[in-house]
């Protein structure tokens, strides 16, 4: 079955026809061309598909396309303003917190959602919050340090 859905992605309203059995991940990547959001497992295990929906980090592979109706969604493409990266993105670069980069969009969105809610997480809180995001390259240490650096700089405020 096909459904007309309207939602907001990265501050842009969109109106699309989707099928019930499509996931939000596929709609973002294939219909909207927002391929920053990755598909790793497609089963809620890896976090590569993490987006922020109505303020909460969620796995786009575990959302049916029609569920997106009326939602406000941010993807990794929505972080930078033109060429200007966010402090979190800069910090990932400064700390070499990425190698192949496949997990990075999901890592950024998870960290972004966490920091908007809790601007001063402890290392333990960072680890717990990021546990749904797998990285096969970095060993996580640099990712955590990149986030801690942003926390230390007090970029986010409640």
């Amino acid at each position, binding site marked *: 079955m096909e*459904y007309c859905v309207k939602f907001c992605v990265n501050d842009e309203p969109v109106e699309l026809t989707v099928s*019930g*059995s499509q996931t939000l991940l596929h709609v973002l990547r294939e219909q909207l061309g927002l391929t920053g959001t990755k598909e790793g497992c497609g089963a809620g295990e890896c976090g590569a598909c993490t987006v922020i929906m109505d303020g909460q980090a969620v796995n786009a592979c*575990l959302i049916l396309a029609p569920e997106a109706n009326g939602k406000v969604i941010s993807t990794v493409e929505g972080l930078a303003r033109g060429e200007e990266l966010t402090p979190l993105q800069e910090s990932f670069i400064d700390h070499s917190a990425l190698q192949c980069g496949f997990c990075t969009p999901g890592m950024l969105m998870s960290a972004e959602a966490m920091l908007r809610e809790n601007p001063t997480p402890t290392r333990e809180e960072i680890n717990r919050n990021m546990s749904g995001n797998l990285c096969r390259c970095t060993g996580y240490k640099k990712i955590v340090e990149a986030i801690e650096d942003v926390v230390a700089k007090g970029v986010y405020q409640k």
Partner: protein
Amino acid sequence: MRDFVYLAPETLEEAAALKLEHDDKAIFMAGATDVIIRLRDHLIAPDYVIDLKNIPDIGSITFSETAGLRIGALATMTQIATNEHVLRHYPYLAEAAAYVGGRQIRNRATCVGNIVNASPLADTATPLYCHDAVLELYSLSGCREVPIQEFILFVRKVALNPGELVTGIRVPYLPGAMGIFRKIARRNEVDLSTVCGTVLKTDNGWRIAMGSVAPTPLRLPKTEALLNAQPLNDALITEAAALAATEVNPIDDVRADRQYRLDIVSYLVRDALTKLR
């Protein structure tokens, strides 16, 4: 995924009528963290998927000393893990919810969904078993309440009649209860439980529930009776830990073998009794 009709009713009446009409051809979803995986893996192939998230008034978490805790059908694991009443009066339930999957899963997955799925290793089940929680069911022919132990019948089998749905879970308040929830998994985060369990010390005695050690979560009545018959001491803790392992019947699977699970049950009981004594 095979295509299906996605329905998003806005009232309970509508949801129940749709389920009654399509019965086995329809499945309810809330957080959908389990449903979508099962659709994707072709374990289920419904013609209709009925999303409950647009129904108002079934999402809240409320608490009073007389009514206890009420967890609405749409309350997420994140909401339960951070709710002030749950943290204060049912901290072991908050803990169980806080260790389901990763943050992205907890932001979507619901406690009611966890119970309705009736997985033997459902993380939130054992605290609810210890509290003799009650499922609130709704259908067009009326409402009824079913104790959780009578609701979960077997692996993925629950006592729902055609056209019936769960609107919430009532968790009686036990003043002064102290408990410990433990989840043993291959890794600490984002894994299914190899064994999970809750041990509760109440004014009226001990309550123990274990998960992933039988087709359903279990209370351990013999161990509870043993503990309630005499004051706790080292010898009794040892005896209770041994008895607990005889009350469960785990299987070998990818996560662990039977003997490991038996040993863990004893360990969890011994450890919790030692900490709560």
